[in-house]
């Protein structure tokens, strides 16, 4: 069964807060849910499918359904692949809608790592109990930054990628963030600013890293017949793919990501190619994340990602592939340390023509949103969505 045309994104909402010490995590989830439903012109009592991941409190679908008093649910899904979860949720919601299991699916993400002082990228952290790889990695100081730095170091070794090329990803994001009044880092930065910022984990500098923020976001996915009745542009799912990549029993290859498979699946289902994409939301936990994924998605050859992102090629109105026009995780927002939700939201804004006028891609009818979750340097999930405006 193809998902092409089977479901539409009818509501999208990003929480305006970047620091929310007075909000519970449950309240943040409920506020983004309310925002996305209002955006769609629906109410909570229209929701019969609910999707959330590990950022939701407790037994997510149960505890959050109670908090929001969702009483009509007939389909729930708590698939957790870290920051990519919400892209998988859109795909899984489309599957459920196509199978008749629900009509209006709500997807929420929220958290407050900033208020809780989480050393997100620079302290070794376990994701939970009984994880079989922890004994072999946490004692060695496996931080998020180090895991991505290992990918960057190998990419530089194999392909000659430079710190200056990586820096261009941050520079492009900052050019977009200057137009976003809610962005955490709205200042335009230069390549020199990035490469002279303090080293976090060689070769990644502080400005190669994303922000740490509270907040969240939500999406509403609905059956096309419902989408056409609502007073919003109809944004249809055209293709989706998901994949998981890990150490493969000791055979890890750091030069590529799971995006190679999730992207190929999404493009095949959509029947389009990277050259057709007018705007791309690309997960940007670090600058290297973007470079590797652009290659794996087929926007350029493997190993040429550094050259591809250089000289402003990702800047809207300047380069060939406008990306993360909200400023992305690198400059705007990375709520709950999970950036997949905001990738979809900005793609929806672009397709509706509702991005900031300074970064809106003219005639944006076909967009890609791609996320990874977990650690690129050890194990991660990824998902790719191709969305179109009807």
């Amino acid at each position, binding site marked *: 069964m193809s998902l092409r045309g089977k479901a539409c994104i009818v509501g999208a909402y990003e929480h305006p807060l970047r620091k929310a010490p007075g909000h519970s995590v449950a309240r943040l989830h409920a506020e983004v849910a309310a925002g996305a439903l209002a955006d769609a012109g629906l109410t909570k009592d229209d929701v019969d499918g609910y999707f959330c991941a590990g950022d939701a409190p407790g037994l997510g679908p149960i505890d959050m359904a109670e908090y929001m008093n969702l009483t009509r649910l007939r389909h729930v899904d708590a698939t957790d692949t870290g920051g990519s979860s919400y892209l998988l949720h859109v795909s899984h919601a489309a599957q459920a809608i196509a199978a008749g299991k629900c009509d209006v699916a709500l997807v929420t993400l929220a958290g407050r790592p900033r208020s809780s002082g989480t050393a997100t990228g*620079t302290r*070794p952290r*376990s994701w939970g109990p*009984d994880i*079989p*790889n*922890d*004994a*072999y*990695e*946490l*004692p*060695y*100081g*496996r*931080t998020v*930054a*180090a895991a991505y*730095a*290992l*990918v*960057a*170091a*190998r990419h530089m*070794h194999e392909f000659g990628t430079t710190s200056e090329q990586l820096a261009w990803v941050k520079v492009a994001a900052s050019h977009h963030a200057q137009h976003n009044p809610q962005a955490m880092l709205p200042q335009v930065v230069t390549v020199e600013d990035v490469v002279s910022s*303090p*080293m*976090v*984990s*060689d*070769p*990644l500098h502080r400005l190669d890293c994303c922000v740490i923020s509270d907040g969240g976001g939500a999406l509403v996915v609905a059956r096309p017949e419902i989408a056409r009745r609502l007073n919003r542009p109809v944004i249809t799912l055209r293709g989706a793919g998901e994949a998981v990549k890990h*150490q*493969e*029993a*000791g*055979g*890890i290859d*750091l030069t590529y990501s799971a995006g190679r498979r999730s992207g190929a699946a999404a493009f095949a289902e959509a029947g389009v190619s990277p050259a057709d994409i007018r705007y791309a939301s690309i997960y940007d936990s670090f600058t290297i994340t973007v470079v590797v994924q652009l290659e794996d998605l087929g926007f350029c050859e493997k190993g040429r990602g550094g050259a591809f992102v250089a000289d402003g090629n990702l800047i809207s109105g300047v380069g060939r592939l406008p990306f993360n026009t909200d400023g992305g995780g690198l400059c705007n927002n990375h709520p709950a340390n999970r950036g997949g939700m905001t990738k979809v939201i900005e793609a929806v804004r672009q397709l509706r023509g509702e991005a900031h006028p300074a970064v809106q891609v003219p005639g944006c009818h076909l967009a890609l949103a791609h996320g990874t979750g977990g650690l690129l*340097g*050890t194990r991660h999930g990824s998902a790719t969505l191709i969305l179109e405006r009807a």
Partner: protein
Amino acid sequence: MMAPAPDPDSAPFLQAAREGRLLIGRCLDTGRAFFYPRAISPFTLSSNVAMEAASGRGTIYSVTVMRARPAYAVAYVELEEGPRIFTNIVDCDLDALRIGQAVRVLFRPAEDGQPLPVFTPA
């Protein structure tokens, strides 16, 4: 070093480390080496596996210096037997570490005294 949480799967690896050996897994169905060690074969899912001591020789596949206080080097080392393993490089000039460099195993105690394999330039 953070102490490894006890786990039935990693117990043989930790016991071997106390005896100064770096343990890897071997699938007896396919003859292939694997890491990390576990009770089932990652190639066939059978429990027809053996644990064996690696030579402790390898080369750096990728390396980064985490600029914490104190700074430390995180690496994947490709063992002579094949598997690439997540580890630290110690007793070295952190800024001189290079991909492709030859390294050899040694053992360092974690916070709880449990010795763990790490590597140093050969």
